[in-house]
Structure formats: C-alpha cells, structure tokens
C-alpha cells in the first residue's frame, strides 16, 4: 500500500472515532458551538483529504455530511434522526476505508445515504422558512424526523436501528398511560432522557479525552509518536535475540569463572531485562481503546430497545497488550448487548420494580496480579434461576433431579452452555441466544476466564479475567519421549506425581488410565501418545504399577483431564512466536518459542489437545470447578464401569465398588466344587460367571472384575470392559431380574445397572454365615438416603452382610420412625438431602433422648476437613465417603463392636 495512503488511513481512523464521540456529545448539547465546530472541522478535513486522494465515494459522503453539519451550524435544530444519519455516514466511510486497505476504493452506491442527508436538509429548510422563532418546538422536531425518513427508502440502512419506531411509538404509549395534555412534550422528554443517557456515557466513558480537550490535547499530541506495529514486532524479535545472547554469555561466564566479566555481564543482564519490559510496555494500549465503540453501541441499543441506558466506565487507563485488546473486543460487545437486551428491563418493568427508569451498565477494569479483570455489570433483572431451570429441562441439558440439587448461582452457570438462551424471542440485538458460550470460548482462547455473579433482581456482573499479554506467557517446560514442549500454565491446575498406593494413583479401566484425585476420577492421556510419538504401550498397566508418573492436571472450563509427561523440567516465561504456515495445520500447537539454550520448542494448545484426546465437555461436570463450597451438585455423579456380559445391553457398576480389573488366561480358572476359583494374590478367589458370559478357553483372556470384602476377593467374569463414564444415575426402570437393579441412560445409551451385592453375596456366602453366628442377634440398621439408587445399592449389601435394614427416603421419614419409637442399632444417613439435610437430621436425632445414643454414620460424596468437623459436631460417630463400601463396613463393624462392648 502507498505509504501516504497508509498514513491517511491511520489518521482518518482516529478522526472518525473522534467524530463518533463528539457527535454523541453534540446531540446532548446542541447549542455547544465549540463541539459543532470541532466536528465540522474534522469532517471538512476528511473531505479534503479524500478529494486529494481522488476517493470519490468518500468525498461525496463527507461532502453531504459536511453540508448537513453546516446547516446545524447555521442554527437548524439538532435531531436524533439527524445525528443518526451522520453517524451512519461515518459508518459507511469506515466501511469504504476498510476496502481501501486492499488498494482502491471499493465500488458501491451511496446515493441512499446522501439523499437521506440531503433530504433532512431540505425538510429542515422547509421548516425553517415557516419557523417564526429560532427555538425548535417539539412539534417541529417530530415533523422533521418523520417526514424525510418516510419519503426516503429506509432500507438503505438495514443494519441500523430505526429511531423512527421509537419516536412514533413512544408518545402514543405515553398518551395511553397517562392523560397528559401535551403528548409532544412527553415525547421530547423521552428524547431528552435518551440523550441525557448518552451524554453520561460519553462523559464517563472517556474521562481522559475530556480532560485532554483544547490546549491540553495539542500538548499531548506533541508528546506522541506514531509507530508502526511492524517496527515494534521487529524490536521485540531483536530483544528476544538479545535475551538469548545474554543467556549464552552468562553460561560461558559461569563456566570460565572470569571475575572481570561478572560486573559488566550483570549490568548487561539488567539492561536487557529493562529493554524487554520497555518493548512490552510499548505494545500496551489503554483498555479504553477496546471500549471506544461501546458508548455508540449503547446509544443504538437504547433507541432500538426503547430503554434509556447509561453506560459508566472506570479504569479505562488500565493497559493491555494490543493483541489481547483485539481478542476482547468481541466478547465485550457481546456482553454489553446481552446486558442491554436481556439484563435491563423495559421502562414499565423497572418502574414496577421501583428502579430508576434509566438502566445502568457499568464497565470496570482493574489489574490483578498478571491479569486484568474487566467487569460488565448491569442493574437489570438479573438471571432468573427458574427460567434457566425450565430451559435446561426443555432442552434436555439436565434432568430435574440434577437441577434440584443446584443452588441459584450454580443454575446461572448454565448460560455458558452452548446453545443456551433464556429469551424465547429472537432479537436482532443479541442474536439467537448464541452467545455466552462464544464469549466464554473467546476468552478461553487467550487463557482467560469468565465468571458470572447475579443477585436476584439487582442485576448481573460478568467478570472477564484475561492475561496482560499473549506475547509472554508462563509455561511449564515438559518432556515427553525425548522432546520438549511448553504447556501454558493458565490451564494447569496442578502437577501430581502419581504412584501406586498413594492418594494420587493411576488406575486402569481396560486400557484407559484414570487418575484418582481426591475421590474423583480424571481421565488421563499420555502426551507422547497423543502426539503420535509413542504407541499404545504408553498405557500399559505395568507402567503405572512401579514408578512415579508425572501428571499435569488441566482444566478448561468444564473439562478436566490429566496429561502424562515424562518430566516437568521447570517453569519459564516464554516469548510466544506464531508457528510457520507449513505447520499451521497442527492445531495441537498454538505457536513456538525459543528457550534460553537456543532450542525451539512447540507450545501446546490445551484446548486443541483436549479435543484431540476426545475429552467431551458434556461428560464432565460443568460445576466441577465450584468445588467444595457447594457440595450438593456432584452428589450422584459417579464413575461407572461399563461392560458387556451375556446380553447385548451394556451393563454398569459403580467403579468404586470394583477393586481391580483383571484379564486372566482362561486356563488359570480352575473348576472346584460347582464353581470356578482362581489363584489370586496368594489365595483362592471364587469367580462367578455372570449369566450368558462366554467362558474363554485355553490362553485366551477372560476379563474379571475383582471385588474385595474384608481382604477377601471375589471375581466376576464378564465378556468385555467397554468404558468408564462419569454419570448421574437416574434409574429409569427398575428391574425384576435378579442381579439387575434397573436400567438407566448413560450417554444416551441404555445400560443395566448390575446389583453387585447379589453376586458378592453369593460369592461370599460363607462369610455371611460367620457373621450371623458371631452376633447374638441381628443388628438393625436404618439407612436414610434420598437417592433410590443408593438405597437400592446399599440395602442388599448391608443385608448380605447380615444386617437388618430399614430404609427411609428422607430425614422426615426417618423422624417418623423415631416418633414411632422404633429402635435401631446404627443409623446411616446421607448428608445431602433436600429439605432437611443430614446435619440437621443428626442434630434432631441427638436432641431426642430416645435416639440420642444411637451411633450415626454420615455418608457423603464430598469431603473436606471443614465438612468433617461439622459432621462430627452434629453428632455423627463416623464419616464415610459415599462410594467407599469397605470403609462403611469397617465403620459399621466399629459401631457394632463398641455396642457389643457396651452391652
């Protein structure tokens, strides 16, 4: 591109933004000659320059706009419509300028716009002739607005809101509502309110600019130099090179131990770092750059939606890397649209809610650590948890049972799900409810996060947390199969060294390794294998049996997964460089970087890697991130082992019940009595075949699920292990078939949930007898759990172990039993139950002398020291993880022995 033309484009761009802002200000202060003159000058300059470059389209529009403004300067009244048309011209000019970047003015017809600009002029002239006094009346305002726009095809400005509709509708509505004698007056008030709103926006949005008016502005400009981005990029590269050279020098100095080198090297090192920081700073722009267009946007939304909205902003001076700035523009625009369209209520609703008629959107930016937080807050209706609830059910995103357990705050997070929208109406303002998920993914692309807080009717706050710069990022330098990679730290939650027998261990489900992490299972992938550097041997069970495995746990929004690396070498701030176009198809890498030793390594893109690994967003709990603060949601989400045995229908057992998965050569199964046994871990393990399971022959492998009861093993032979799914058990159909609890849907497929206790009971028949003879009488256990699944699962287990089990589906039911003066030896109660939770229930039990001495065991899928303390304080004797059958049995045993001792 012509250098001169390039200069012109850059300058014009700035001028146009200035015109934008000045016009909005002028609309509010139509009598401020100074502003008008400024706008006039800017447009005039624009016209002149366009003429100089022979840009005919541009100069024609600029000329028409100038004429229009000239009339205002001559005293013609300023109207909303007039300003809108001039703004539209500015838009058109920008559009043409965009095309101009490719070299020449794009072809097109602007007669629609020009005639609108002119028509307004004529109409006003017509008015002006008849006008007797210079001050415009509301009537004239209205006439001028409506007449020309009707006579000129309004389609010319499809994308633009039609202020006409607002002005036509508003007075009528008002007339109906209150019998004011002067509807025109009201109309003017409405217009004034809107204008006032814009005025506030401008004022608030650009305090810097306001300060920098007049002489100050001129002074500022002389302090500024325009630098091409290329120049900065080149400087950046040069500095990176300098950093490398410095590192090499330092390395040499360390080895040669030459004392005279030390001081100058140290200085060189400092200067280099200083230089690097300086260049980084030069790439920074105030965040208000990304806000520039928002006042205009709010003005238009205000008009289209007929909602007076005030935009307030603070922290516009906070600086961000220009690259990041580009990335957040769209999400911000989206959030503002969202706030205006969905957040802020209509005038009537606001009045009814006792809020000021004018809605408010607040933009705030502040620095926090290496990040910038941008908040978009509105004082609208907030997010309606009930509407979200209904929508989730309607769209099949979640079941009522799942949703019932969620707090309002948790329900609100569903708005970030793809395809979710609570407005039934399709508006042209926020689109078809595609949106917040896009905002989230946009922000995540640059390693940021979005949070949402909404407090009932007081509005919502979206906070974006974004890195200061993309050019330098903190990364883990990891090694896999002899290659080194950079793994951006933003998504790494933790790095664990897993080994068999520790709290962090890797368990195999078929050939899929899972990391057990604080009671949760996280799917684990081998980095080298994902990258094709290693075969399936990466997942051989032997690998995880012996030594340590280093796993980086990554979290991407709702998705969590583990990445096995050979080693984590160190963390380093890396300078991100784009990858060559030859490697562009490798989406797994987001770029590359040069390390201190001069080697070039690829930077892993965690999102692309998750996609490659097939980590499915929907299969992972969306609220996993909200952790222990809110224990309810994860309650029934449990890892299920899916397998095939006999029939074609898949079968499932809770993974936690399974001790091990084995594949044993069939020949090792020995017939004994009327069943099979296997020599297993120094003992004999009975192996039952599920109905219809094919017994393998010879050396073929027979998959076996191993269960453990008090150190004794029992095997269940099956046909094939299919998968592990983390799922909520929502028993659809109960089954009368022995050995099957019922059927449920897992990932849309019907699965039979196997009643393990039946088999375990059978396999351990011998032991049950032992317990019964040991105990003088059968112990009565009360199991309180609102989940049918757990009642179904635990009751047979307890019964099989020789307890007499009573069931209660809620704390209330249990309390009824108490009123009936029933007696139990032990009470096992779930903690998370609707209405009356386990803790409240325990307190009530302990308050009744009749039951106060009964030992109580708490069941929960969550555990934290705080929770356990609360549980104990409430009177529970013991606390057991919900899926930890062995612990439950141990806890029961402990209760029994203390009971027996007491007796």
């Amino acid at each position: 591109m012509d250098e001169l033309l390039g200069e012109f484009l850059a300058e014009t761009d700035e001028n146009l933004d200035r015109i934008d802002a000045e016009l909005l200000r002028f609309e509010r202060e139509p009598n401020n000659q100074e502003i008008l003159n400024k706008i006039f000058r800017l447009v005039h300059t624009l016209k002149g320059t366009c003429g100089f470059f022979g840009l005919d389209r541009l100069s024609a529009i600029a000329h028409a706009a100038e004429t229009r403004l000239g009339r205002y300067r001559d005293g013609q009244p300023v109207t909303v419509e007039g300003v809108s048309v001039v703004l539209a011209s500015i838009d058109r000019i920008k559009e043409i300028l965009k095309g101009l970047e490719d070299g020449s003015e794009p072809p097109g017809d602007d007669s629609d716009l020009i005639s609108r600009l002119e028509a307004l002029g004529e109409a006003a002239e017509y008015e002006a002739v008849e006008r007797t006094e210079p001050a415009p009346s509301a009537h004239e305002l209205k006439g001028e607005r409506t007449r020309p726009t009707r006579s000129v095809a309004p389609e010319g400005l499809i994308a633009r809101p039609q202020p006409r509709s607002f002005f036509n509708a508003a007075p009528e509505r008002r007339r109906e509502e209150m019998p004011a004698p002067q509807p025109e007056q009201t109309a003017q008030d409405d217009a004034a309110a809107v204008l006032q709103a814009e005025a506030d926006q401008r004022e608030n949005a650009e305090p810097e600019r306001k300060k920098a008016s007049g002489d100050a502005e001129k002074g500022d400009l002389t302090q500024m130099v325009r630098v091409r981005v290329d120049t900065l990029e080149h400087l950046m590269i040069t500095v990176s090179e300098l950093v490398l050279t410095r590192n090499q020098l330092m390395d040499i100095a360390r080895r040669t131990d030459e004392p005279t080198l030390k001081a100058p090297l140290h200085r060189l090192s400092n200067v280099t770092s200083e230089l690097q920081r300086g260049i980084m700073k030069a790439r920074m722009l105030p965040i208000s750059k990304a806000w520039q267009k928002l006042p205009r946007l709010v003005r238009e939304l205000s008009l289209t939606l007929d909602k007076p909205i005030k935009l307030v902003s603070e922290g516009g001076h906070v600086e961000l890397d220009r690259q990041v700035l580009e990335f957040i523009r769209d999400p911000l625009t989206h959030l503002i649209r969202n706030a205006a369209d969905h957040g802020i209520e209509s005038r009537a609703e606001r009045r009814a809610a006792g809020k000021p008629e004018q809605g408010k959107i607040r933009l705030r930016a502040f620095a926090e650590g290496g990040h910038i937080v941008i908040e978009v807050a509105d004082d609208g209706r907030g997010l309606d948890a009930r509407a979200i609830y209904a929508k989730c059910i309607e769209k099949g995103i979640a079941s009522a049972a799942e949703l019932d357990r969620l707090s309002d705050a948790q329900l609100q997070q569903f708005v970030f799900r793809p395809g979710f929208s609570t407005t039934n109406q399709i508006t042209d303002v926020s689109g078809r409810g595609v949106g917040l998920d896009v905002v989230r993914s946009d922000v995540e692309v640059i390693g940021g996060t979005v949070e949402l807080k909404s407090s009932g009717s007081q509005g919502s706050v979206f906070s974006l947390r974004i890195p200061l710069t993309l050019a330098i990022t903190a990364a883990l330098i990891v090694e896999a199969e002899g290659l080194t990679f950079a793994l951006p730290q933003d998504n790494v939650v933790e790095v664990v060294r897993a080994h068999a027998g520790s709290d962090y261990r890797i368990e195999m489900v078929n050939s899929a390794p899972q990391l057990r992490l604080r009671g949760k299972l996280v799917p684990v992938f081998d980095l080298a294998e994902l990258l094709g550097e290693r075969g399936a041997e990466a997942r051989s069970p032997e690998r995880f049996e012996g030594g340590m495995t280093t796993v980086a746990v990554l979290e991407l929004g709702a998705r969590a997964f583990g990445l096995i690396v050979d080693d984590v070498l160190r963390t380093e701030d890396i300078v991100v460089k784009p990858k060559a176009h030859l490697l562009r198809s490798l989406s797994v890498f987001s770029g590359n970087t040069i390390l201190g030793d001069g080697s070039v390594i690829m930077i892993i893109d965690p999102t692309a890697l998750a996609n490659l690994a097939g980590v499915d967003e929907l299969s992972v709990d969306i609220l996993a991130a909200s952790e222990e603060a809110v224990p309810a949601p994860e309650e029934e989400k449990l890892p299920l082992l899916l397998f095939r045995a006999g029939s074609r229908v898949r079968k499932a057992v809770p993974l936690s019940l399974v001790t091990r998965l084995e594949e044993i050569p069939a020949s090792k199964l020995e017939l004994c009595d009327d069943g099979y046994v296997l020599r297993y871990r120094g003992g004999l393990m009975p192996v039952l075949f599920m109905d219809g399971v094919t017994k393998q022959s010879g050396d073929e492998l027979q998959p076996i699920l191993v269960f453990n009861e008090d150190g004794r093993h029992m095997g269940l032979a099956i046909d094939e292990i299919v998968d592990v799914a983390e799922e909520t058990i929502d028993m659809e159909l109960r089954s009368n078939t022995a050995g099957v609890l019922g059927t449920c849907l897992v990932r849309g497929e019907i699965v039979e949930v196997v009643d393990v206790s039946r088999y375990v009971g059978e396999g351990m028949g011998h032991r049950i007898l032992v317990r019964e003879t040991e105990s003088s009488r059968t112990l009565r256990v009360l199991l309180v759990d609102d989940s049918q699944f757990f009642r179904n699962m635990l009751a047979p287990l307890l019964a099989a172990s020789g307890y007499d089990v009573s069931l209660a589906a809620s704390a209330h039911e249990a309390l009824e039993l108490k009123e009936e003066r029933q007696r139990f030896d032990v009470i096992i109660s779930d903690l998370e139950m609707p209405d009356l939770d386990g803790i409240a229930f325990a307190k009530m039990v302990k308050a009744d002398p009749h039951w106060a001495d009964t030992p109580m065991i708490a069941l929960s899928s969550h555990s934290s020291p705080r929770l356990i303390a609360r549980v104990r304080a409430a009177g529970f004797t013991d606390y057991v993880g919900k899926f930890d059958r062995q612990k439950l049995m141990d806890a029961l045993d402990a209760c029994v022995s203390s009971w027996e001792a007491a007796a």
Partner: protein
Amino acid sequence: MNQKTSDKIRRQAAEGYVTAMVGDQLFGVALCEVRDVFVPKGICRVPMAPPSVAGLLSLRGRVVTAIDLRRRLGLPAREEGAPSVAIGIERGQEVYGLVADRIGNVLRPDAESFEPNPINLDAGWSGACAGIHRLERGVMVVLDVESLLDAEKLRNAA
C-alpha cells in the same frame, strides 16, 4: 516455454543460482530468493509435522522451519552426523531453511540452457522442481521454492 517464464528464467539465470548438492544431484535456488546460507544446528523435531519438515531451529532470534530436501525428494536419509547445510529463505515474517548436503558455488548458467522438467521425472521431484539447466557437466535442477513451501503440496509429498 512461454514468453513470461522465459523472461523470469533469463532474469534468474543472469542473477545466478545458489547451488547445493543433495545426494548426487546438483540443485539451484534463484539467488534473489536466498536470504543466507547457514549450518543447521540443534534442529528440534516437531511431532505430527509433515515428514519433510525436519524441525525447527533458532537463528539469530528467529525461528527457522527446516525442510529436509532429501526427505522431500524421497532420497535416503542422511547418515547420522553427516554434514549438512541450509539455504535460508524468507517468506513474509517467516524463515525457512532448505537442508542440503553441501553448498556449491553461485552459478550463472546460460538462460538458453534452460529446459522444463523432463516428462519422465518422478512426480515427487517434478512437484518440487521448476526445470533444469543443462551444464557442461551434468545438469542443475532448479528448485521451485514456491512449491517447496506450499503446505498443501508438502502434505501430499508425504
């Protein structure tokens, strides 16, 4: 050969070719294309990259994508530790290195000695070569830098 090509060839021939040996064949890259010649050191392999991309290395603060001409032309791999040399080529913001066995002189052949790719040339070669110059001893194959750096062709060339 149409007029336009021949003009280009004439210009290139007059300016000269940087020559390099790959296997037993002499290749030439138009001088105007060449940024520098360097010894590729510390090439870091990139997983999942097209096979002819040998990897990345850093050269004076820039990241260089090394393309192994042997692999690109389907020749047997260079022996471990055998010397190699790279012809640096700049494309926009990016630098590429064409890795050859050893570098030769700059040659300025007679433009009239140019001939298009022989029709019986292996498809892998004809996709990477722009034609040949008949020299007094043997021929010099002109490398088609544009094709060599074309991501699509690179993938197809395996």
